[in-house]
């Protein structure tokens, strides 16, 4: 889905739900999404780490750390 299509649909949905104040936030989210997609993280991520390697916590402490 293109960002433009997504934004059009999201704003229409916000209107339908009676949340017009959400539309400026959705526009700012669209800008952030454009930045995210344009940064080429996918390719860089594949080079940087194998799938599933993120976020392995430190050796578990006593208790129920997640």
């Amino acid at each position: 889905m293109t960002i433009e299509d997504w934004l059009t649909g999201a704003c229409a949905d916000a209107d339908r739900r009676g949340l017009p104040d959400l539309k400026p936030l959705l526009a700012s989210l669209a800008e952030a999404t454009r930045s995210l997609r344009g940064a080429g993280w996918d390719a860089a991520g594949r080079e940087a780490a194998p799938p599933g390697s993120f976020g392995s916590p430190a050796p578990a402490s006593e208790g129920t750390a997640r």
Partner: protein
Amino acid sequence: MTAPLHFHTIAELAPLIAGGHLSSVDLTRACLAEIEARDRALNAFITVLGASAIARARELDAEIAAGRCRGPLHGIPISLKDLIDQQGVPTTAASRVLDGHVAANDAPVTARLREAGAVLIGKTNLHEFAFGTTSDDTAFGAVRNPHDPTRSPGGSSGGSAVAIVAGMSVASIGTDTGGSIRIPSAACGTVGLKPAWGEVPCDGVVPLSRSLDHVGPLARSVADAWLIYLVLRGQPTAARWPLPARRSVKGLRLGVPRGYFLDVLDQDVRARFAMALAWLRQAGAQTVDVVMPRASGTAAVYLHVSLPEASAYHAGWLASAPERYTRNVRLRLEMGRYVLAEDYVRAQAARAVLQGEVDAALDGCDALALPTLPIPAPPVGAATVDVAGTPQPVRAMMLRLTQLFNLTGHPAVSMPMGDTPAGLPCGLQLVGRRHDTEGLLAAAAACEPFVIP
């Protein structure tokens, strides 16, 4: 004149309590009196547990009289951010959404504090559901900065930092998803520790974004934060007390990230940071420039992880009781419902890249050193602030230098590095190697005497 005892550090108070020279009841009463005198103006607390705190302090004094000391937290009044469960006490998360909710059990961190002898004095105010950095969107009224009540204390653990500065508790427990321990610590002048991700259990704590959430201490010194961190991690402190002699600042190698991290800074913060680095170098530390070339993409990555994770947790209440949220928090939670799954996955891939960049920057360094906040505490309710002649969004400024280390899971600590000419505190942030919170704390303890004027 010496400050009253309830403004002292745990490291100073613990020997007095252990030796029977100071009663926990007197210390607790002094904190409660401060709450009574000042909290109407500062709004740091949502729930004050006066009677139960005094009763517990009395029990702990009796233990000392009988020859039992649990460790350095024995008899110390500590507050909890009001999204951490304490059995039999309301957990509000500063929201009307949780009206009537009373915690059935202690969170593991609460139980560990209790076992270590802490006196749980009350639950502190915060940005609603920890979803903000200024502590003004809350169902219990905006929290005020003790250094200037027209200013925000930062957030989301704003009430926790205020409680410490105002002498209402000796330390506090907060949470940090994008900077929520370090930001108020910098804005109010306390020490705030975000441990490495996964070290301290988040069970029994209202989540914001589960893969970014951390629980940690706010305190008056690095040593105090260290002691509380050990307890939160589930490690007995009696055997570690007193803490080992701090390492020397001589030869400490600090990486100073350039580019994105220093591009947008208030001039007073920039001056304080330059002075802190100069003092550290004069004391024998080495500073080296490091780069993290993709750090400028942090905010977009953070948004695409934090928003959908927060919205997923809140989906039920957004459907059943949307009017119970404050307006701004509701809108941001609603925004998260529109993030596409493919972009969430992209953001997760970006985290691995950023993690690698922070690891590389730390290679050969004991810690990274950078400001915690690029600005001093902003006015309460401000949407933008002027930075070097350009208006900047407050929320983006508050998160700018902290959120990266939530994405990567590295431990990070904020400590005071002096005030602006207007008397507003500035924070120095040190970031440690992945999974090495104690190494970070040792470096921070070595730096502490040289950066606090």
